[in-house]
């Protein structure tokens, strides 16, 4: 079977969930080989990658690969593509992932498709575009296809193997070192899951009314083990930090459950959450357009409904 490269997303030495999804998807295209770039590869990481079917793990261990944004990752991948001639490269649709895909595409003169939500065995990618209103099927026609894949689009299925570790050492070019990371600032340590990977997202909008109002949103999120999101109206008003914005100019999420509170549902917001599997809407305005997308909606004051829901969830836990 042909080899498919899967770039590992990792943080603090552990493999992110999206990588298990990508390995699962890669198995429909060929035999997945994981590519670990940066320091921190461990037995635990190997175990996770093996659990989801990585036959090999290419390990490019070294701080030089992450101390310069994006460019060294593309160099490692370009070198692997030229040596191993894989049939495709799969990368998570994160900011780093998409930029890595873009640079790699130029290096290996290949087409790139971003934000795929599925890939068929013959390499046709499905994308959901324009805020989920249109489904597009497309394929790469030149070179080695590069796909970036949205988190939460493929349910991870285990297929245990014991991966072979293959160390790779690719020198980072002078050009790739021109931009240097001199510090990392952690703004968020709230113990909640990553917004883009979370299985459940609870978000608040204009109806939340104030920074303090978000306490009820956070309480509901915590009762569900969910991430917190916000509409642009809420982040622009300064009620909740910008990095939590869901929408056309913020993050695109596709969780199993999306609970929208006090969000009317302009296209700006829908573009970021429309592909969520189940959508729940709480809004006091029965005309709010987001109700059109709701699997279940409550017309009512979120400050009544949401705390009651949180209590019920705790009671039933």
């Amino acid at each position: 079977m042909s080899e498919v490269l899967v770039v590992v997303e990792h943080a603090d030495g552990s493999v992110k969930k999206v990588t298990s999804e990508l390995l699962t998807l890669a198995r429909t295209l060929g035999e997945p080989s994981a590519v670990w770039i940066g320091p921190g590869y461990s037995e635990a990481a190997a175990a996770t990658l093996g659990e989801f079917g990585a036959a090999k793990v290419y390990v490019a261990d070294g701080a030089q690969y992450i101390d310069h944004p994006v460019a060294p990752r593309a160099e490692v991948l370009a070198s692997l593509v030229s040596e191993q001639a894989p049939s495709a490269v799969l990368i998570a649709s994160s900011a780093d992932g998409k930029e890595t895909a873009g640079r790699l595409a130029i290096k290996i003169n290949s087409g790139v498709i971003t934000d795929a939500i599925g890939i068929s065995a013959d390499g046709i990618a499905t994308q959901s575009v324009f805020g989920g209103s249109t489904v597009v099927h497309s394929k790469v026609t030149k070179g080695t296809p590069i796909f970036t894949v949205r988190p939460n689009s493929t349910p991870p299925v285990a297929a245990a193997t014991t991966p072979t570790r293959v160390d790779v050492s690719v020198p980072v070019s002078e050009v790739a070192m021109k931009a240097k990371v001199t510090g990392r600032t952690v703004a968020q340590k709230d113990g909640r899951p990553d917004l883009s990977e979370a299985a459940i997202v609870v978000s608040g909008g204009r109806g939340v009314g104030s920074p303090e109002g978000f306490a009820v949103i956070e309480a509901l999120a915590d009762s569900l083990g969910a991430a917190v999101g916000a509409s642009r109206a809420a982040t622009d008003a300064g009620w909740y930090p910008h990095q939590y914005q869901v929408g056309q100019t913020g993050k695109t999420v596709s969780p199993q459950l999306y609970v929208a509170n006090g969000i009317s549902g302009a296209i700006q917001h829908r573009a970021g959450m429309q592909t969520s599997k189940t959508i729940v809407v709480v809004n006091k305005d029965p005309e709010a357009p987001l109700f059109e997308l709701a699997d279940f909606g409550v017309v009512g004051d979120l400050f009544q409904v949401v705390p009651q829901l949180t209590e019920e969830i705790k009671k039933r836990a």
Partner: protein
Amino acid sequence: MKIAVCVKQVPDTWAEKKLRSDDSTLDREAADGVMNELDEYAVEEALKLQAAHGGEVTIVTMGPERAGETVRKALSMGADAAIHLVDDSLHGSDALATSYAIATILDGRGFDLIFFGSESTDARMSVVPAMVAERLGVAQLTFAQKVDVSGTSVTIQRTTDYGFETVEASMPAVLSVVEKINEPRYPSFKGIMAAKKKPVETLSIADAGLDASQLGLSAAWTVVEDFAARPPKAAGTIVTDEGDGGVKLADYLATQKFI
């Protein structure tokens, strides 16, 4: 300091967007064109740096003649000059072709900083800035929520999932900005009047020294097989809160096995 800002005309952010049935490209006639919203932040950041450090701000765009409206808007915000690549054979260009065209136009013009918005609201790929940096062989400082210039050194805060990275480079550099970075100005009446007299260099692909075989739909590295409107969602259950809305919602979540 010579600053370029690459801008794109896109369908109005608030309009429903669709693909053309004949060639599966974006239907640009179906909605009003506007400057890509995130590009306004890039123009604003360039103008702020110019105010602090001097120099010149040049707008760069590729797209049909109509994209001239977006060029005028950027000039009316305060940019000094513009370059507009307009050629029928550009139609359907993908990200690889776009980055090739933009990098070729920029190359050799001595720009110290090249700004982009971090994504366009139509294609939403977020790859062109990184691709242009790759092609030009200059530093990539993208997803900036803050930009500081000191002499020939540029430092940004790169937005990440967990906060930000501080990234430094020497000029020249390619930057992209996120909306958090500033509040774009509205063009003043005086700005709109002044923009009419500002120089716009209009280039065809031949003028720009571009290879036509690398551009347009026929040269694209990817092809759309088919597309369809998403099937309409079945209407959900909507209840009105009568003091038990939270309980009913919990019941629903329980039937769906979320709790």
